[in-house]
């Protein structure tokens, strides 16, 4: 277990599955024994507005919001939102936007974008594979589970660990 708090920012547009992505990541961190805080605002943003979800995990997390300039990983679901949010990255933070195009090319259903990007993100984090699987099982009920597991591994395998 890493001592440092890990800061991940997910961004996109209402309806893209941004909140579900941070939900999976949050559960995975819980399964790995971390203290987790995740912050977002529901409501009007559902109507096609910008959506951002902050996820932080570590030994003890105070603020649910990541301080501007302290984002370790930026996971973007939309190019425009990436342009807006990348100024919040730490100087050595990782912008996963380079995988957005590849992800969109590889998935058949746009609903799978979140799980695919989580697959990509998973290779950068010190969370056990078993915890990711448990998290996906937690978040996706019944019928959706097997295809989402498949999509997760597609994303995960795209990055060489």
């Amino acid at each position, binding site marked *: 277990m890493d001592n440092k708090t890990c800061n991940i920012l997910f961004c996109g*547009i*209402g309806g893209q599955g941004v909140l579900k992505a941070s*939900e999976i990541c*949050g*559960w995975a961190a*819980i*399964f790995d024994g*971390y*203290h*987790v*805080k*995740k*912050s*977002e*605002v*529901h*409501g*009007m*943003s*559902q*109507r*096609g*507005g*910008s959506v951002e979800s902050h996820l932080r995990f570590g030994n003890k997390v*105070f*603020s*649910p*919001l*990541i*301080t*501007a*300039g302290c984002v370790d990983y930026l996971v973007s679901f939309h190019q*425009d*939102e990436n342009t*807006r949010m990348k100024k919040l990255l730490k100087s050595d933070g990782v912008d996963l936007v380079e995988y957005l195009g590849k992800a969109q090319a590889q998935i058949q259903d746009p609903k799978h974008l979140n799980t695919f990007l989580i697959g990509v993100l998973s290779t950068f984090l010190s969370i056990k594979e078993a915890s990711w699987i448990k998290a996906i099982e*937690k978040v996706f009920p019944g019928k959706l589970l097997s295809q989402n597991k498949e999509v997760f591994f597609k994303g995960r395998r795209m990055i060489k660990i």
Partner: protein
Amino acid sequence: MATNRVKDKIFLSGNEALAHGAWEVGLKVACAYPGTPSTEILETLAKFPEVDVQWSVNEKVAFEVALGAAIGGVRSLFACKHVGLNVAMDPLMTAAYTGIGAGFVVVVCDDPGMFSSQNEQDTRWVSIYAKLPMFEPSSPAEARQMVKQAFKISEQFDTPVLLRMTTRISHTKEDITIDTRSVPVQPPFQLNIQKYVMVPGNAYQRHILLEKKLQKLKTYSENSKFNCIEIADKKIGFITSSITYNYLKEQFPQASYLKLGFVYPFCDDKIRKFAKSVKKIYVVEELDPFLEEHVKTLGIKCFAKDPSFRIGELRPEFMSDIVNGKAKVEKKPDIRKPRMCSNCPHLFTFATLKKLDAIVAGDIGCYTLASLPPISALHSCVCMGAGVTFNEGLRKAFPSGKIVGVVGDSTFIHSGITGLINAVYNKAKGIIFILDNSTTAMTGGQHHPATGFTIRNKPTKKLVLEDLCRSCGADYVAVVDPKDRKKFEEIVKQRINADALSVIIARHPCPLINR
């Protein structure tokens, strides 16, 4: 069980954690009207079969049903957003006098930054004004702990207890360990005219007791573990509460803190003690100078944020500017704004109103988004129900104007109906459009009396809006599908020049709702 349990940890939002905590201590009755950011509290409670849960018609009704249950002897809860509490202020103010039978907690969720609200009032002032104790959690885990304590105190001091959340705490998720449910023994219901009939003579006696109660609650506040002193570096001491505590802890981990979780009545002795133990005191809080002004009345020299930071939500990156006494730098928001869905039936209604150049008195709901360009066809929005009453008011100032009012179906039932009766009684004219998408769409699609289903999706008696409007005495009532544009426009054109009060129910279900 209503939760996804992982061994002993679950991932809950502040609203969900609060609901769980209330359930754990034997909550029996919960009432609310939906309102962001508070909605999920009742939605979570609705998953527990042991709790009698309802969407009420409005906040005043919800408060009264819940208070009645508490006076009757079962633990009960009322939840609302900040502006919702305004609607329930009438019973709230006098509930402080009557007290309760079993625990009664009033949860209010403020919305600093106005993610989905018409103002950013700071409800902490209500604790002073209504003479009620108030908790203020800083995290979802604390929301759960505090609601449990709030029920205890409510019974110990015979008082409703306020629990104030903010959007950031309501919608933050955290891993939380929950407990099983235990229900306290129900006290026998006692008729008590002196306590529950607030006529002047009785109320005077209750006011005497209330003032004594506040003194006892002050002693409680001094000893509460939720008002916590953390001494570290004595050069800087922060007095703070709510989410701001977390932002400060990130930026100034070495400083000393007085974290206030039981904010009212104030723990003056503890505040003085803390002030003496550190060199320099900073009071940092979101929105109004609630703590700051009180600390200053104690004669304590303290530094507080520049007034420009009273506006909007605080963020962790603001902390150093606040401490350095700088003013807030206003940035132009660059976010993608919400808009009406492309297949929204309201779009058709507003297309017609725009074409006819109508002045549109608006209300609270998805359709408020019709004020944004390129539609720009909604011209006022103040509070629930004002779509109906502003039609009447504007016409008094501007009798020849082409004025109409619009109100949603849920909003009409909440507080539009009284405005309609007023318009009929006082012979107002014009058209009131009920934009009926057959749900409470803005907050995520909750049922209301005219959907014919309860919060748990069970069938109930259905309110028929057209019958209701006819019996109020409207001169003309029609139900039209706004997507049938030709017919819709024809009717509107015909009615807009009529010397009459018309109600046009523009009915087409919200496409986001699948039932």
